């Protein structure tokens, strides 16, 4: 996972509240076997509408999403974060996030900053009057800056530390790798190993046929 200290990119005003994970990515896309390439699935139900914000040239390459309250509610699908990241978003700002979505985001390197509703409104106004304005998000200072306006955001210290260090869950566990290796040395020899494979003689299996 990439380390993030500051990020600067085009801000996208999403004037909607209660954007649930079904709207972020509809269930039909869950059948895929990949975990990248979900950019086409992001907000799929809205992308057909020419007036949708991401269909406007100025916002198309956005990477900082400024959304209404209760972003990411609904099912716990990790695909919601994958879709946002695949599209190019690095930061989502909202006045309130669903817990599971925030948790999933922190693990995948997507910054979720909590900004007061008034400040969200302020950012929306700037981004709407001057489409294409870049927003700079500073994790160190916990601020977001657009034009001459700087607003504070909240993020818990643990998640912030992980994002700045670029540690995903696995990376975090692997900081204890010496402990894991030491533990492995103490495992008894009766504990099973799948390799080399042992099994009963291989016998051809007859295919059942429709009756």
């Amino acid at each position: 996972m990439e380390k993030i200290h500051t990020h600067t990119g085009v801000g996208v005003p999403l004037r909607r509240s209660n954007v649930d994970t079904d709207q972020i990515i509809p269930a039909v896309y869950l059948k895929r076997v990949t975990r990248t390439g979900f950019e086409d699935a992001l907000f799929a139900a809205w992308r057909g509408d020419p007036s949708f914000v991401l269909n406007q040239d100025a916002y198309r390459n956005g990477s900082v999403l400024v959304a209404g309250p209760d972003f990411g509610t609904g099912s716990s699908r990790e695909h919601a974060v994958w879709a946002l990241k695949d599209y190019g978003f690095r930061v989502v700002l909202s006045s309130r996030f669903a817990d599971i979505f925030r948790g999933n985001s922190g693990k995948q390197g997507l910054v979720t900053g909590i900004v007061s509703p008034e400040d969200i409104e302020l950012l929306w106004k700037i981004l709407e009057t001057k489409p294409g304005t870049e927003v700079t998000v500073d994790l160190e200072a916990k601020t977001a800056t657009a034009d001459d306006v700087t607003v504070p955001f909240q993020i818990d210290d643990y998640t912030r530390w992980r994002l700045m260090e670029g540690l995903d869950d696995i990376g975090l566990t692997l900081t204890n790798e010496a402990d894991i290796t030491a533990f492995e040395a103490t495992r008894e020899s009766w504990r099973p190993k799948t390799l080399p494979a042992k099994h009963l003689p291989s016998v051809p299996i007859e295919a059942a046929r429709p009756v």
Partner: protein
Amino acid sequence: MAGTLAEKVWEAHLVRRGENGSPDLLYIDLHLVHEVTSPQAFEGLRLAGRPVRRPDLTIATEDHNTPTLDIDLPIADLTSRTQIDTLRANAKEFGVRLHSLGDADQGIVHQVGPQLGLTMPGLTVVCGDSHTSTHGAFGALAFGIGTSEVEHVLATQTLPLAPFRTMAITVDGELPAGATSKDIILAIIAKIGTGGGQGYVLEYRGEAIRTLSMEARMTICNMSIEAGARAGMIAPDETTFEYLKGRPHAPEGEDWDAAVEYWKTLRSDDDAEFDAEVVLDAADLEPFVTWGTNPGQGLPLSASVPVPSEIADENERVTAERALEYMGLEPGKPLREVAVDTVFIGSCTNGRIEDLRSVAKVVKGRKKADSVRVLVVPSSARVRLQAEAEGLDVIFKDFGAEWRNAGCSMCLGMNPDQLAPGERSASTSNRNFEGRQGKGGRTHLVSPLVAAATAIRGTLSSVSDLDLPYDVDITTFDGSPLPVPAGI
């Protein structure tokens, strides 16, 4: 300090104790993999350039999507085929052992572990599948995990885990004729509810549990998740050791002796404290059947469909009304009069050789009711081979049942084995959720014995409804000595 079985296994796997409220890091002994929850986990590894840390503690099988007919032909459903092909490519790339469709060791992941002797007492076992609790029957701490945790275990062979609470479920007494371990677990879930086990690891104990075979124990632990629990466990004993001995991956020689000595210590201490306790008398049990759309909505077969207007609690009343509407059941109708269209015998709950034997014993020499179709799906290819060696396949075919290849099949209908809208089944599987066995399908969860009797009569029935004296000793078939080679 006195400890419960679950706590002992937990302690033995602590790589690092969490500090200041952070989770403990636990070592995982055995990681089972299947095609549905693994593709993104492998891709995550690939993207991060990480290898599988311990391919030698990992094993994969194809089960959820596989067809149970024409397994030698290409899989028709595109999504299914993609998932299977992806697993094959990933197993090859990362060096993971895979038992593919058509291989004698292919089967439902929760059958494959035990039959190879990989599942043992005192292990931590995980799989991207909620019914991993099955392996707790051996005294292992076994639980289901999500896709990102699958990736985590592949990469590190550990999992950060928050502590759990423990619940003792004591089942005293002796099971009456015609009742089975499936009826025990359905009764437990009906008693504590589908959320009753939330946050707990359940430990089943008591006289009635001790006398059960390994397969019957697996049925109970399998459905722990339906009570909301993360895992279910049973302390190992001679029955466990007997089952394991001689299996392909069971320890040998000195290793065996050392293992058994340790396994014997794996029981909750007499003064161990549980966070909750439930007691049940097996003698009170009779064959159970679900009437609703969650596994907690079950009743003894002798009961009638509940009448919602008689339910005081408003929430429960509304839930029951909705369930009955979906199930197309008339309030007050005796359950024994409910006619079914399909009988499904299979799944990781009740698709084992012992289940097939008990069904064969009931249906031998009889004909199924004309109105029902009967599907018999062994839980693994080895179980199928064993059943054929014992002639069970012939009994099933003579009865009018379809004898299929191994897999999850109609348990969840990811393959072509599905219920049609409105079609009603008596199923030996574990979930009766809306649409689980096919869109609009209606599921009654039952034991293999009830499934067999129902297939004969066409309505929900128990063996006591049949005109034959029935001998409940289901460990032998036809009185002849059991030809049970290791591996089943």
